[in-house]
């Protein structure tokens, strides 16, 4: 069994008005070797929309909160490094 397993799963298509919506989820299964523990991380990946003319559109599901949090933390780390470099240069 692999330690980290990644899978994109498609759910059942849903008919909403003239659109057919197929949800997709991204699943990570993590098994920790040496101990009997497992982690499953399931998040929405995208929504496939089929219009009545048959054309398909893929709408990715963005996790804005996570993106902003990582940006803030990266900015904080970068800011600290810059302050350290500036103080050393003086």
């Amino acid at each position, binding site marked *: 069994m692999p330690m980290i397993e990644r899978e994109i799963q498609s*759910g059942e298509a849903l008919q909403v008005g003239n659109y057919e919506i197929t949800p997709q989820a991204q699943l990570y*299964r993590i098994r920790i070797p040496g101990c*009997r523990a497992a982690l499953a991380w399931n*998040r929405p990946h995208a929504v496939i929309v089929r219009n009545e003319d048959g054309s398909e559109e893929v709408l990715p599901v963005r996790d804005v909160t996570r993106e902003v949090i990582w940006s803030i933390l990266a900015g904080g780390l970068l800011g600290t490094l810059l*302050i350290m470099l500036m*103080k050393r240069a003086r």
Partner: protein
Amino acid sequence: MTDETNSNELENTGLDRYQETMEEFLSAADVRVVYGEPIQHNDTTIIPTAEILCGLGFAVGSGSGTDTGHNPDNPSVGKGSGGGGGGRILSRPVAVVVASPEGVRVEPVFDVTKVALAGLTALGFMVGMTFRMSSKRRALTSVED
């Protein structure tokens, strides 16, 4: 010897059952848990989506020992086994899928509290590091003086 073998068999059976439970738990994680039931409101249908993180772990153990300290002629033998496990499920809304006659769009969910907490953490880290560096410099200057 027989007791020890029985104990090991019991332990292995328990471990196998736990392993099966874990595999069932992992296979239960699928697309249905991420997308909620559609909510109809007039012409608009809303499908909530969430991120699910779940963890599970367990362990079993057994041991035995012989005490010859009190009575070396007739040592007392003791053994025991035990096990435990736990798990946690975390859920967080990520976005909502809005389907209306105008089209289908994905509206992200913005968690202001989490972002504010991250911002305060980053700010605290920056201020802390700056103060630490200033106090080190001041300490060095006073030593030189």
